[in-house]
């Protein structure tokens, strides 16, 4: 078994997704199968390999330190689900 219900629960919490019991059950089975498939990578000897995070051989791409116009504040706020004047509003941050 590559992954169990508890791990799925923990991972869902890490990813901030609320799942029903049914979903946890369902996903655990599916993810387990997928991870079993993915285990074929164990056959490869990776000891001398460098990871490829970027396919391009590029480096040192910069922008100059010049100020550019920002978005008009109306454009910034128009998709906001909740706002107070020009501030985004969210509920209480319960620690």
């Amino acid at each position, binding site marked *: 078994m590559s992954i169990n219900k508890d791990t799925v629960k923990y991972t869902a919490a890490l990813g901030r997704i609320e799942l029903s019991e049914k979903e946890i059950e369902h996903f655990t089975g599916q993810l387990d*199968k997928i991870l079993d498939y993915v285990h074929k990578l164990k056959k490869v000897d*990776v000891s001398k390999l460098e990871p490829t995070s970027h396919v391009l051989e590029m480096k040192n791409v910069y922008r100059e330190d010049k100020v550019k116009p920002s978005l008009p504040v109306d454009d910034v706020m128009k998709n906001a689900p909740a706002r107070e004047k020009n501030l985004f509003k969210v*509920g209480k941050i319960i620690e």
Partner: protein
Amino acid sequence: MRRLPRLVAYASTQVNKLTMELNKLSAHELIGLLNKGDISHLDICNSIIDSVDKKDKSLNAVVNFDRDKVLERAKAQKGLPVFIKDNICVKDELTTCSSNILKGFRPPYNATVIEKLLKANAVLMGKTNMDEFAFGSSTETSCYGTTKNPWDLTRIPGGSSGGSAACVAADSAIWALGSDTGGSVRQPAGLCGVVGLKPTYGRVSRYGLIAFASSLDQIGTLTKDTEDAAILLKMISGHDPMDSTSVDRPVPDYAKLIKKDIKGLKLGIPKEYFIEGMDKEIKQSVLDAIKKLESLGAVCENISLPHTEYAVAVYYLVATAEASSNLARFDGVQYGLRASQVKGVIDMHKKTRGEGFGDEAKRRILLGTFALSSGYYDAYYLRALKVRTLIKKDFEDAFKKYDAIITPTSPTPAFKIGEKTQDPLTMYLCDIFTISANLAGIPGVSVPCGFTKSNLPVGLQILGKAFDEETILRIAYNYEQATDWHKKRLIF
């Protein structure tokens, strides 16, 4: 009453102005007519709008179509109409990635490719349907319901750019943009009988493309033929200072370069792509295509890309890991869905994402989060990145000797709606031939190369060296000119 599509092969060289259906023509043909003054761009737009009105109820390829807005745009922009996949930002237009979590979202900016199209006077017709956040190979995970394959409305069009491919195939679009992370432009192109091109990673700016997997994504083209792909590619390519991963290389005049012949080109046929038990009709169509290429002067040889078998596994760790991070911003704070009835911010996050994401999105976020999490990072994510190096090297080694690589686009033709939704892994294996190109960052194009007995399209994939789109398009063009698969059209 649902009308079943009929296959009609028709030569489109003669255009009778009185009976012409402009929507059936290719972009380069229309450009020719426009330049001669035979038609107006408004004629073209109206033809497309009519087609959408007639066909899209059955196809469900276009989402949030705003007829009035389109007519307004058609008056202002004097170019060809184009459809845009719903994960590419168009300013103030609904851009939802076919997901409930982005319901109502109107980006305050245009993607760079959109700016380029607007500068070229393109008329933005609307957004096309897709798998939610590009997670899929069938367009079945869309919150708007699946798009149907125009060749058989009981089948899927492929994915995730299923809407764009279906539109072009049904002549509801002249051409369209899609995105390709593991095959999402090429595979639906293959299944819908159109040309689908994924450029080299870095050829086209990703600024404004809502990210799935940042190191794999590229915006691509869905067109009726190769010449159109070449024209559209040139329009959207080029360095973008807003995208650190876009390369500063001159953009060739692809449409000109593809007309050279392919005599003497060395083509590799990887044995790993002709697997035991693959669809016999597909195998035959592809082998016939290879013979055709040889008759055009290309030299075809068997080669091996030995690490092909690991590509799907690598992809479903690397791509989902990046996706889990890219999708973390969908939390109800600044845009999109926000769950109601919540107790505080953490609850808001959890419920918004629980309600807003579909199953496949949740699965991939879970998988990606898991692969990156403490204790599993080395065994999964890091290992996958290392095996990716081997897959990339397979291509680099092959391209030392060969100019291009020829494979089937998809292991199966279009399958029935619902056929593969029960088992995610079965769906993932649909991308088995297209995924490696994204992992290596190389360009690939799918061109029609036949039909099955059930009249389902078969796609031929041509993979090339990094930034060598001209060679793969040249091969595709020459093949097209010697066949007429791409001319077969539906009466829909």
